[in-house]
């Protein structure tokens, strides 16, 4: 009798710590889906529970970055999530040898914690150094950019029931930055596709699909035009598909995907693609659900490093005015919780966020006036919409964009 009680006590303790030792516990595997890279296979998953509080590097960023980061910290505190934040600033400094790099304490903190949350970073135009996002990407070898696009219930767009994930190769492709002026007036840009990078991203895509119970992976390419380069990418995807026979694999041309995406986005599940197409398609999908202001995003790196970020810009004109909407950063933080395995907390915070958006209940001061901004992630063009809570009720798509367009029309007719 006592032995049985003793054993069940031990079982409970072990269950709490996340170890599953018999098949009944395996039903919880449904909940234990996570955004996980291949690296997680090597280290056992429940290490976070054992330590208790998990430390996460927080990079507030510029512009509205500090405000939305502080609101995210407040929300996490209120929900009692076991996260400890370590704030670091990344500014480009010139290391020995003239190479631009991020401050060593930020690098050391990330390497130690392995998980990071990043706000929007500003890229000064004529600073002489490459963009901050590029520096971070190079430093931690962030090879995969994952953007899940799920329709938000409280925020109506013309596209409903969107539920897809775009996985984009983040290191090479068209963004290799290699350009030459051959003759005056003729410029060539080089698009680089390597076997190793394509294989890495294809394997990651299938791992992700498997871990998150996704039914199919679609490779997006343009191999009819760029026969060798996209042909190589496609070959690697096909090889990865052979290794993961439990996930369905299809391939589709980029223009077909665009055509079908705007007509019926429900037919897509996980999309994997090289850099440029990924950039365009992930922003397209973000537009389907409501813009960059509500889209989470995560970058997975080679050594188990994962940085989750909000992809909108710094919006310097509303910084400090208590007007920013932290939804994007919050949803990215939720994605981070899922990656770490804290599904309960993730669900709690996500539900609270969606409820707030749906019911317009004001829970924190930073949400009094909502704001959605969408701009390209490198800060070159941005459009802000401001609207009070009233206009958000019962309206569809993005109402104030029409008002802005109408305003612009008035200015055109004056010319």
């Amino acid at each position, binding site marked *: 009798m006592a032995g049985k009680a003793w054993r069940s006590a031990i079982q409970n303790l072990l269950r709490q710590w996340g170890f599953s030792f018999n098949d009944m516990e395996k039903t919880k595997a449904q909940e234990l889906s996570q955004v996980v890279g291949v690296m997680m296979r090597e280290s056992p998953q429940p290490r976070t529970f054992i330590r208790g509080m998990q430390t996460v590097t927080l990079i507030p960023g510029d512009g509205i970055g500090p405000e939305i980061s502080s609101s995210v910290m407040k929300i996490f505190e209120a929900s009692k999530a076991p996260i400890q934040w370590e704030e670091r600033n990344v500014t480009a400094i010139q290391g020995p040898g003239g190479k631009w790099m991020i401050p060593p304490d930020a690098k050391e903190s990330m390497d130690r914690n392995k998980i990071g949350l990043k706000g929007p970073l500003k890229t000064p135009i004529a600073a002489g150094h490459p963009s901050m996002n590029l520096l971070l990407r190079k430093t931690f070898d962030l090879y995969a950019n994952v953007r899940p696009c799920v329709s938000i219930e409280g925020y109506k767009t013309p*596209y409903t029931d969107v539920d897809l994930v775009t996985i984009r190769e983040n290191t090479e492709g068209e963004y290799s930055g290699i350009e030459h002026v051959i003759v005056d007036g003729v410029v060539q840009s080089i698009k680089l*596709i390597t076997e*190793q990078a394509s294989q890495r991203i294809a394997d990651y895509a299938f791992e992700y699909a498997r871990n998150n119970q996704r039914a199919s992976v679609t490779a997006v390419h343009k191999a009819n035009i760029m026969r060798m380069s996209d042909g190589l990418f496609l070959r690697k995807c096909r090889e990865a598909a052979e290794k993961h026979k439990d996930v369905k694999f299809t391939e589709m041309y980029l223009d077909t995907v665009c055509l079908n995406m705007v007509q019926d986005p429900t037919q897509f599940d996980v999309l994997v693609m090289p850099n440029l197409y990924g950039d365009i398609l992930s922003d397209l999908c973000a537009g389907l659900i409501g813009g960059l202001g509500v889209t989470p995003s995560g970058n997975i790196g080679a050594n188990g490093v994962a940085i989750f970020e909000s992809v909108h810009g710094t919006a310097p004109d509303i910084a400090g005015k208590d007007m920013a909407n932290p939804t994007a950063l919050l949803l990215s933080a939720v994605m981070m919780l899922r990656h770490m395995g804290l599904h309960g907390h993730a669900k709690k915070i996500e539900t609270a966020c969606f409820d707030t958006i749906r019911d317009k209940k004001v829970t924190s001061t930073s949400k009094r006036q909502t704001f959605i901004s969408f701009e390209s992630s490198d800060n070159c063009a941005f459009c802000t919409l401001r609207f009070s809570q009233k206009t958000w009720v019962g309206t569809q798509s993005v109402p104030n964009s029409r008002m802005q367009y109408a305003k612009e029309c008035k200015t055109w007719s004056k010319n």
Partner: protein
Amino acid sequence: MAAVFRRSLGAVVKDLYSLQWQQLASRPLSLSANVCGPEAAPARADATFKVTMVPGDGVGPELMTAVKEVFKAGDVPVEFEEFHLSEVQNMATEEKLDEVLNSMKTNRVAMKGKIHTPMEFKGELASFEMRLRRKLDLFANVVHVNSLPGYSTRHNNLDLVIIREQTEGEYSSLEHESVTGVIECLKIITRVKSRRIAKFAFDYATKKGRNKVTAVHKANIMKLGDGLFLQSCAEIAQLYPKIKYETIIIDNCCMQLVQNPYQFDVLVMPNLYGNIIDNLAAGLVGGAGVVPGESYSAEYAVFETGARHPFAQAVGRNIANPTAMLLSAANMLRHLSLEYHSQMVSDAVKRVIKQGKVRTRDLGGYSTTGDFVRAVVENLRHRSVY
């Protein structure tokens, strides 16, 4: 009795023919929306225009049959010279390509389906379609995206023009494997071609009375390449002070197109972005079956669908939507200055779609291609001569 009847019949026919002959002689044969003002095609003595036709692959042949049927029913004075060029069916050789080019040199106007590019890498980096485009120097692709009256989508009343540079950019077909496992693909942007397409875009905007031209680019990443494109567009924009000029980054543009497409008017861009945005915009108004497109060079004009897909899964099943090809044929007739016939064909097609009784599968109906064509033929308000 019969002789009298025959004589009067002959007189009537002669009258009608002379009327047409007069019309042809008086109206100048100007080709629309062309930058350099090419020489007009010689007026034909038999009053029919000869047009090169390349049906292509997939549903191309079916769509071309639809066009021919409608033209026959409408008594349109156009005669087609067909060439079956197809890479997947191994019917494409250099000689055939030369035949098509020769025919184009005389006729100057063509209707084309999509020549599909097979996936296997056969040792030729440029597909047949690309080669045709380069040899004819069809540098501008214009897709006029118009919402169809009577068919509502998520965005209604759209009216955009997408102008895409078609000969260079990412489609240069210059690829090589420098080291095993590393492939480089070159994207070429030249000032001359960028200026040419920008000038075309602004001329088109001026001619059609458009207010704004937006250049689409990714110059924050590809600073030199797209930077050169932007620079050329900005230089040309200064020559047209009445037209507003803006720039937008491609990913922001895609996002805006799905959230608020009404802010765009004329879009001009290099090759790959054009492919993406063409298809995106076609999807916004109803798919690849409803948007016509045309390609222009300084001397030639080729009319085809806007979103180019061979749609091989519909071959033989009689379900393809001929709207795009029929509207493109109407554009071709306008280009040949056959205004009356052009209006007749496009009105008939639009009336059928507005009535909504006969709709092909991609628009949500159950009719076949044949049904649709028959409905269009019935709606043609043309009484043939007996």
